[in-house]
């Protein structure tokens, strides 16, 4: 049954990679407020740095030997014929994810040291962040789906904690709860999917599970479609895809580095990882795979349109994240698994860069979020400007940036999908144009034009250093060759004609040009567009994220509250209390007879006797 012999191979220090941040988190929790900031920073960032170093070592071993690394620590649970181990499985896919998590994670931790330095809860922040890194590593390194689910919920909990980090504002608490509940709906579906897989195939170990599925199920089996649809539910929730995307924009309530790490680079891409990890199942269910593609396409267009009209710098980036993950889903749905993961990596680089850049701007502008109250920051915050420019270029997929290579690969592969390919491609291309438009709108509005708010400080080295490293990665990230060929297939894109390729280069450039005309050159005035009735309605529609929040509010939240309100006083208890009332009532009737009047007693006694006498007389023959 086992695909590979289960034995510890290669690095036996695999467990250290998630254990280090976990240990550091525990130390930070135990240390509490008593810890000096320098020490807390050393633990918080250092542990992730060490993990990153270990990942490099593991990667060297892996690339040299080309062999999957495994390590089993102990048996987690054993019930009847079900067992789950605490065991790690590291192949090319895992390695890419681990590198992103620890690498980008380390840079963001470093950045946080300066960003959060003045916060009263410095220690708590790093404790949560380290917990998150540990849980995320567990998620990607797990060798069975149950352990993966443990990590999955762990990152969800950390996300909740970090969104509500600044707990004094009730709105942040509300955003945190919303994120948690919405993703939890997806998680419930995923859990059902796991149950279904276990009852059907009898194991949750990923590799044997894939092998079994391939041998037991035929392509298009109902079970396969159902199981993958349920898994997809989990992925949609975690990755903020339609229809469970509404939590991510609100999640921006957390500190900006959190948004960079959790809500851009790593956690939200867990859904993509899940589908890539179980791609064998999804290949057995082409219907689900197609649904993945369409959902990705719909999400990427919707989020791009929404991003176009937002004013809050972090919300723009949040919608852009949703949109970019839409591209990854599109890639997965088109069968371009490797391209999807490639985009995941490049996106992690440039989106972390953008978020950290935005964080630098926010940090230096007294926590200002509105882009129209920024402006002219090009000269005042040069590091932020450069990183934003590079990040936006990569996001817009301008040639030679990392985003270009990954997005191009996705679009070209989408074209080659039979029947629906051109549609997917056209939608993706439209999205690419919109992406270029909104990302350069951001750059032009924030960094050019008149200075509106004067920055009161400049980012120090802890913030600038990670930004510069991420700049380099965002440019060069497209040249990395990922070791994914052995893990999963990738539909080739050699079939696409040349004009398709040229269109992929031209459309983002067009978008940038349009953004220039509208927001910098002034030849096209967005203000005039928005002034017309149609324009106003259009803008209002997208400003509210196409009304999804309101829809869910009427469809689900308010009915639920109403139900809770009706039930607040326990309808069942009323039934029980009816019994009490019945006995009270009969008590009342009986006491009415006992009125204490002697004559009443005598009279009733007399008539009672009479009655008795009558009965006796009647019955005697």
């Amino acid at each position, binding site marked *: 049954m086992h695909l590979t012999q289960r034995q510890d191979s290669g690095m036996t220090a695999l467990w250290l990679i998630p254990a280090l941040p976990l240990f550091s988190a525990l130390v930070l929790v135990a240390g509490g407020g008593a810890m000096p900031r320098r020490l807390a920073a050393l633990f918080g960032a250092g542990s992730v740095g060490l993990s990153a170093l270990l990942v490099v070592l593991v990667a060297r071993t892996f690339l040299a030997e080309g062999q999957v690394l495994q390590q089993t620590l102990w048996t987690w649970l*054993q019930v009847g014929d079900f067992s789950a181990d605490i065991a790690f499985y590291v192949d090319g896919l895992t390695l890419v994810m681990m590198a992103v998590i620890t690498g980008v994670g380390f840079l963001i931790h470093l950045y946080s040291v300066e960003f959060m330095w003045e916060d009263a809860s410095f220690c708590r922040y790093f404790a949560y962040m380290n917990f998150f890194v540990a849980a995320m590593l567990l998620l990607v390194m797990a060798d069975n789906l149950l352990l993966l689910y*443990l990590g999955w919920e762990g990152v969800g909990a950390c996300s909740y904690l970090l969104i509500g980090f600044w707990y004094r504002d*009730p709105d*942040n608490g509300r955003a945190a*709860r919303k994120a948690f509940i919405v993703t939890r709906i997806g998680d419930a579906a995923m859990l*059902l999917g796991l*149950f279904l897989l276990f*009852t059907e195939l009898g194991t949750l170990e990923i590799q044997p599970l894939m092998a079994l599925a391939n041998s037991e199920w035929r392509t298009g089996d109902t079970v396969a479609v159902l199981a993958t649809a349920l898994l997809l539910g989990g992925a949609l929730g975690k990755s903020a895809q339609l229809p469970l995307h509404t939590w991510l924009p609100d999640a921006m309530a957390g500190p900006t580095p959190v948004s960079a790490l959790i809500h851009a680079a790593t956690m939200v891409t867990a859904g993509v990882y899940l589908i890539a990890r179980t791609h064998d199942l999804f290949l057995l269910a082409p219907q689900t795979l197609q649904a993945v593609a369409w959902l990705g396409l719909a999400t990427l267009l919707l989020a791009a349109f929404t991003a176009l009209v937002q004013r809050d710098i972090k919300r723009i980036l949040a919608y852009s994240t949703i949109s970019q993950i839409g591209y990854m889903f599109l890639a997965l749905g088109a069968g371009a698994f490797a391209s999807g993961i490639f985009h995941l990596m490049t996106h992690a680089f440039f989106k972390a860069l953008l978020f950290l850049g935005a964080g630098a701007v926010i940090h230096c502008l007294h926590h200002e979020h509105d882009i129209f109250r920024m402006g002219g920051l090009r000269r005042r915050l040069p590091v932020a400007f450069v990183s934003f420019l590079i990040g936006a270029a990569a996001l817009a997929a301008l040639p030679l940036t990392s985003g270009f290579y990954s997005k191009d690969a996705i679009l070209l592969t989408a074209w080659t999908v039979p029947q629906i390919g051109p549609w997917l491609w056209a939608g993706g291309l439209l999205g690419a144009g919109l992406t270029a438009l909104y990302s350069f709108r951001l750059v032009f509005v924030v960094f050019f034009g008149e200075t509106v708010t004067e920055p009161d400080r400049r980012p120090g080295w802890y913030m600038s250093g990670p930004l510069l490293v991420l700049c380099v990665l965002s440019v060069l990230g497209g040249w990395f060759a990922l070791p994914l060929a052995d893990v999963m297939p990738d539909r080739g894109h050699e079939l696409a004609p040349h004009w398709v390729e040229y269109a992929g280069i031209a459309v983002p450039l067009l978008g940038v040009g349009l953004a220039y005309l509208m927001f910098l050159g002034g030849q096209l005035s967005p203000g005039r567009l928005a002034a017309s009735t149609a324009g106003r309605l259009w803008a209002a529609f997208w400003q509210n994220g196409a009304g999804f929040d309101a829809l869910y509010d009427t469809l689900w939240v308010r009915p639920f509250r109403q139900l809770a309100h009706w039930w607040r006083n*326990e309808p069942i208890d009323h039934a029980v209390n009816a019994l009490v009332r019945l006995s009270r009532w009969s008590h009342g009737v009986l006491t009415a007879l006992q009125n204490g009047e002697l004559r009443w007693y005598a009279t009733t006694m007399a008539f009672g006797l009479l009655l008795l006498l009558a009965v006796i007389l009647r019955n005697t023959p």
Partner: protein
Amino acid sequence: MSMLALVLLLVVGGIAAAVSERLNDNLPRIVSLGILLAALLLALSWLGADPGAAGVSNSEGPWWLYLKLPWIERFGISLELGLDGLSLVLVLLTLLLGIVAVVSSWTEIDFRPGLFQANLLWTLAGVCGVFLALDLFLFFVFWEVMLVPMYLLIAIWGHEKRGYAAMKFFLFTQFSSLLMLLAIVVLAWNAAVLTGSPTFSYRELLEVPLGPTMAWLTMLGFFAAFAVKLPAFPFHTWLPDAHTQAPTAGSVLLAGILLKTGAYGLLRFCLPLFPQTSAEFAPIAMTLGLLGVFYGAVLAFAQRDVKRLVAYSSVSHMGFVLLGLYAWNTLAVQGAILQMVAHGVSTAALFMLAGALQQRLHTRDMERMGGLWQQAPRMGACALIFALASLGLPGRQLYRRIPDTGGPVRRASAIRRRRGPRPGDRGGVLALAGAAHVSGRARTLPYHGRLRHA
């Protein structure tokens, strides 16, 4: 013999605590803590027991410890105690939470601390007896023993509506346990008719055949008692009142342990004694469990009172237990047992936190709390951890193997072939999202937001 000693230790300890009150107000607390620690040590010593050393076994496998002394021989009643993995886990949980309860009442209870500790210990004695008794009559006696002191705990040391809550608790439990007594007597009488001599012994009754109609009626008698205690959906209304009005230690005991006796009874008696009938009854029981899960979650969401909220989440969680027990395969039953233990720990902790909040703020109304993290960050952190645990994040399942929870599970799974995917499971898990909602609300309201209550 050591099992009897454990129960007697707790009973005598209760008397000692009550008497020691005359000397010093603090003494009863110390006495009671000492007694419980001794009892815990005694129970821990059973961990190393050699299964099968007792030499008594039936179809479910050996008892780790076994004791049978004559009591009322004329009616076939004896002092029959037995211990297996399941009992041991629950006894350990009981004593552990007992210690927690004593500690949590240390400063809270000023009025007659000796009597309080005595009632606490007597309740624990009853619970331990329930987990150990193998004679149905003895079981019933212990079942009643745990009821009365609990009633007193609520009625004397409870909060503002204690009289109502205590009486409700008492009436619900008493009425249903009388049904169980009736069922027990019917079983013994049936044995007398068939074999010539009446018996109340669980081990002997397992072998006595029972007509289908009679099996249904007696099974319902047992189920009524256990379902009220559990509590299952339509019989749960005593629980929010009792939990809310009880003093903290009382809530801890109620939620942590007393509810488990219901599940234990189902698992130990109801399922093995009436395998066929229970199998036919399973869809109904699972429906009740499922309804309880949803109903409890929605009502918990609707509450403003912290303790009431936790109480309704208990209803929801015990719905899962009922679902698991009647799903009736090894995995589900083990899951239910695990859920019982985990629920015992996490809910007890949440009640303690609620009690601590009330002691400091003199209110349980969440609308009047807020921003507590600022003033009580450590308490907030604890609340967070236990709320997450109660929410069912898989972290809390990180347990090393529970000592073989053995007997009844194997028996149950042998009776029924493994079923396919269970419909109950699916609906049940959907409710997790609801449960998430609940705890989320519980946590954020008091701890997040601006400081509202000085």
